[in-house]
């Protein structure tokens, strides 16, 4: 706790964890909320992107003369003639991982990669112009699967990356070989994890406006206005301060909207050429084929345990299909290896991850960040081990789980952990179900997740999160944060923390976010960082403002030094005599006069220091999913679910439930629906008819049992809730299938045909066995 904390353990929270409406509600339920999709500026042009039809090819020549001759076309740009050709990437600290030009100069590396862009008076003219751009390519041999791309004779996708190995990661602790020696039972399995599309309801979108004073303003659907400001400044050769990024309401992000994308880059380049605003909105098809996806992975994992179920050693080797560029894929590579150990204690653990370039859609972060893949493998294998040894799967998990105070050697200190209570809750839930109908089964999966990362591969000089609280004379509060609300409700969460910490009503707090000109830098909405990191900054800023205000109250109060003042719900009072006091507004007026007419301003910031290798705090959960499977057709139907969940102190009650239910639908989709096949680098189902997702009639109840813990690193003891919840469901579905049929599904998403085939194989094997 920082020095501004007012300790008041008997006073319940007034705003925290109450049924507060999302503060953006009125705008969103009345059709007033405008998104980048809706932005319309005077003189605005429409941009369209010409995309590579080849997975790997040299760009020989681009002839845009016919397109430029089409009436209504104002500009056609390409990488070679119109950009600085700067290779960028979000891992700015590591030059060799900055490998993407967005509009490439020399060659294309995936089907759908931008090659040229057009700005025209109408969208229709821009689209017609695309057909009139002649591009001469020299096709190159291409490679699509990581296990092919690492072969000696595979085509080289990026110069200097031998065997197309883009990034490697190694995590290790303990004496791994010794730990395996101690094991009495060892199991090894190979798994294949699919990709997944973010499928934000608002596709990638940007409106860029470059003006003759050398300033670039960009409206874009982003998870981090600051990231895009910095990235765009870098590739456009502009000063960061001359780039303003605005995020109107954002229609979803899920990990796909904080890297520089084609909409942003091409709109900027076009606007710089014509000095007019240019709007680019991806069609749904473009969004599927040209916005990066969840990382497909090949997982090998070998686990050694004692016969009584004590975990000894694990060794995992993972090859990820990185696609054509690095992006955030490097982080997913690291996190998958780390969370593959969660939530268990291992005497010896070793992970080797290889991210491999291929000529396919680049892979990046997506909600869960490598952990859904990690759990698909780990939690199923653990279930099979329990079955192999005849042990109770919950108790086997429990005895090996993390606990408060545990140190993951060299990696992390677990300061709060409610996993043990999670096991109890799920046991109760299972018991309450009694005997299930014969075509149903329950599958479980445990997991843990981070509350923001400690890494600064972006190489920012700024605090990871900052906040400014300004108190107006009428008692209303302006809260400026760089945290980005992408639907998860961070505006509301920050308003809640501010209102709680400052002592005002939430209606009196106005949140300002999504504008780099007015809001402090913040790394943005990814890795589940904002509640903990921006939340801490907001708490600090609010308590700073409160302290300044209370100075004026103390001065007037004449209170004995041992008595404290506090502010709750706009009432300034002595804690011992709460009925005596004054209104917040009255105090503010005095304080403002006392400060020579200056508004009280509180500042706060947070950057994790010395918090291990991954995160300052970890959430934990155990999820049970009840599944009905048709044994003749393999059709899967989700019936019920319960998630026992430890996110420390919940802040935004409605937000938390929404996060759980939403994460479940996305995570379930990863487990059994969102098949995303590629053939020779081409995505086969880039539309919502053929890409299947959970709809209302497929969604089961998503019950939640909140486990009470207190995380010292988090504001009011809070940790993340929302991304971690995407991690367990695929594995839980896999385990439900296992418990029903005894078949082990190694590949996700699981489809009915796979189940039917596995059942056939099992029946055939049993027949063979009987014959013998």
């Amino acid at each position, binding site marked *: 706790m920082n020095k501004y904390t007012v300790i008041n353990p008997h006073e319940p929270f007034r705003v925290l964890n109450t049924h507060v*409406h*999302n503060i*953006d*509600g*009125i*705008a*969103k*339920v*009345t*059709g*007033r*909320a*405008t*998104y980048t*999709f*809706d932005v319309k500026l005077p003189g605005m042009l429409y941009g369209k992107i010409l995309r590579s039809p080849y997975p790997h090819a040299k760009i020989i020549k681009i002839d845009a003369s016919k397109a430029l001759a089409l009436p209504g076309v104002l500009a056609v740009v390409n990488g070679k003639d119109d950009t600085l050709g700067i290779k960028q990437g979000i891992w700015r600290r590591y030059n060799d991982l900055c490998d993407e030009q967005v509009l490439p100069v020399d060659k294309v590396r995936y089907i759908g990669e931008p090659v040229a862009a057009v700005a025209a008076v109408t969208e229709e003219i821009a689209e017609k112009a695309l057909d009139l751009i002649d591009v001469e390519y020299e096709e190159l041999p291409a490679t699509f699967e990581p296990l092919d791309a690492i072969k000696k004779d595979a085509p080289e996708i990026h110069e200097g990356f031998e065997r197309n190995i883009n990034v490697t990661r190694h995590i290790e602790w303990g004496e791994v070989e010794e730990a395996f020696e101690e094991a009495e039972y060892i199991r090894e399995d190979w798994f294949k994890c699919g990709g997944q599309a*973010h*499928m*934000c*309801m*608002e*596709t990638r979108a940007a409106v860029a406006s470059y003006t003759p004073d050398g300033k670039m303003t960009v409206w874009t659907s982003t998870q981090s206005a600051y990231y895009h400001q910095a990235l765009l400044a870098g590739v456009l050769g502009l000063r960061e301060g001359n780039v303003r990024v605005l995020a109107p*309401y*954002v*229609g*979803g992000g*899920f990990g796909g909207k904080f890297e520089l994308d084609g909409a942003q880059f091409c709109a900027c380049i076009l606007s710089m050429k014509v000095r007019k605003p240019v709007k680019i909105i991806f*069609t*749904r*098809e473009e969004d599927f084929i040209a916005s990066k996806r969840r990382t497909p992975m090949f997982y090998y994992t070998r686990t050694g345990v004692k016969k009584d179920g004590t975990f000894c050693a694990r060794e995992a080797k993972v090859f990820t299909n990185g696609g054509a560029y690095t992006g955030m894929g490097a982080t997913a590579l690291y996190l998958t290896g780390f969370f593959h150990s969660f939530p268990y204690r291992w005497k010896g653990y070793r992970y080797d991850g290889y991210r491999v370039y291929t000529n396919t859609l680049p892979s990046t972060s997506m909600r869960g960040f490598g952990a859904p893949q990690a759990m698909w493998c780990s939690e199923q294998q653990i279930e099979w081990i329990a079955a192999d040894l005849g042990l109770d799967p919950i108790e086997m998990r429990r005895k090996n789980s993390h606990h408060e105070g545990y140190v993951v050697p060299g990696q992390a200190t677990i300061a709060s952990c409610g996993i043990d209570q999670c096991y109890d809750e799920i046991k109760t839930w299972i018991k309450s179900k009694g005997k299930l109908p014969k075509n149903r089964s329950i599958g479980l999966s445990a997991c843990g997740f981070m509350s923001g990362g400690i890494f600064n591969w972006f190489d920012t000089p700024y605090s990871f999160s900052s906040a400014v609280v300004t108190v107006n004379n009428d008692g209303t509060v302006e809260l400026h944060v760089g945290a980005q609300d*992408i*639907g*998860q*409700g961070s505006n509301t969460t920050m308003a809640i923390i501010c209102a709680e910490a400052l002592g005002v009503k939430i209606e009196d707090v106005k949140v300002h976010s999504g504008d780099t000109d007015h809001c402090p830098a913040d790394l943005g909405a990814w890795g589940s960082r904002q509640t903990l990191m921006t939340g801490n900054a907001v708490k600090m800023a609010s308590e700073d403002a409160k302290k300044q205000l209370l100075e004026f109250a103390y001065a007037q109060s004449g209170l004995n030094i041992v008595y404290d003042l506090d502010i709750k719900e706009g009432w300034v009072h002595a804690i011992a005599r709460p009925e005596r006091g004054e209104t917040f507004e009255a105090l503010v007026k005095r304080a403002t006069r006392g400060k020579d007419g200056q508004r009280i301003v509180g500042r706060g910031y947070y950057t994790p220091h010395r918090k291990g290798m991954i995160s300052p705090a970890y959430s934990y959960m155990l999820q049970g999913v009840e599944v009905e499977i048709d044994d003749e057709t393999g059709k899967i139907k989700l019936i019920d679910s319960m998630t026992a969940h430890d996110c420390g102190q919940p802040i935004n009650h*409605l*937000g938390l*439930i*929404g996060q*759980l*239910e*939403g*994460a*479940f*639908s*996305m995570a379930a989709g990863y487990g059994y629906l969102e098949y995303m096949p590629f053939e020779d680098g081409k995505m086969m189902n880039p*539309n*919502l*008819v053929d890409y299947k*997702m*959970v*709809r*209302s*009639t497929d*969604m089961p*109840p*998503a019950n939640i049992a909140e486990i009470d813990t207190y995380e010292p690193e988090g504001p009011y003891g809070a940790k993340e809730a929302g991304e971690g919840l995407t991690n367990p469901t695929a594995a839980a579905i896999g385990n439900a299938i296992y418990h029903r049929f005894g078949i082990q599904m190694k590949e996700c998403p699981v489809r009915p045909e796979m189940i039917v085939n596995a059942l056939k194989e099992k029946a055939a094997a049993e027949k063979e066995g009987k014959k013998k």
Partner: protein
Amino acid sequence: MEKKLITLTVNDIEYELYINPKTLLVEAIRDHIGLTGTKRGCETVSCGACTVMIDDMAIKSCSVLAVQAEGRRIITAEGLEKNGVLAPIQKAFLDEGSYQCGFCTSGMLMSSEAFLKETKNPTEEQMKEAIEGNICRCTGYNSIVRAIAAVAKGKYAEVKS
């Protein structure tokens, strides 16, 4: 191609438009009339973000030609409130937190409103089916169904004095 002069009645206001007949209703609403509450999220009539009410029926405005909607009563999300007073379904969405990023919300509201107008005492299954044509990537749908249920149960019925 001949442009057509048509009158569209949207939220009980008549708008005169002079448009290419291939203009979709969603384009007429968003680009010609300027009401951007109705969104678009796909090209295959799959996502439902463009759902409006035409003569009290929930319909995807991306697959209706604007010229076909002449003479009909079109309601969009902006038309749900009356004199600044939110409709019951809007209040229910606020109470249940039935939206996150909000991009699907206008469509969800219209599907819900149309359903509530035509179905009394709905079952849980019927309420889920009411929004089956609308995709939401954020909420997992259950909070939207809870909002519909609350309205159906009469939680927001006007108290007559």
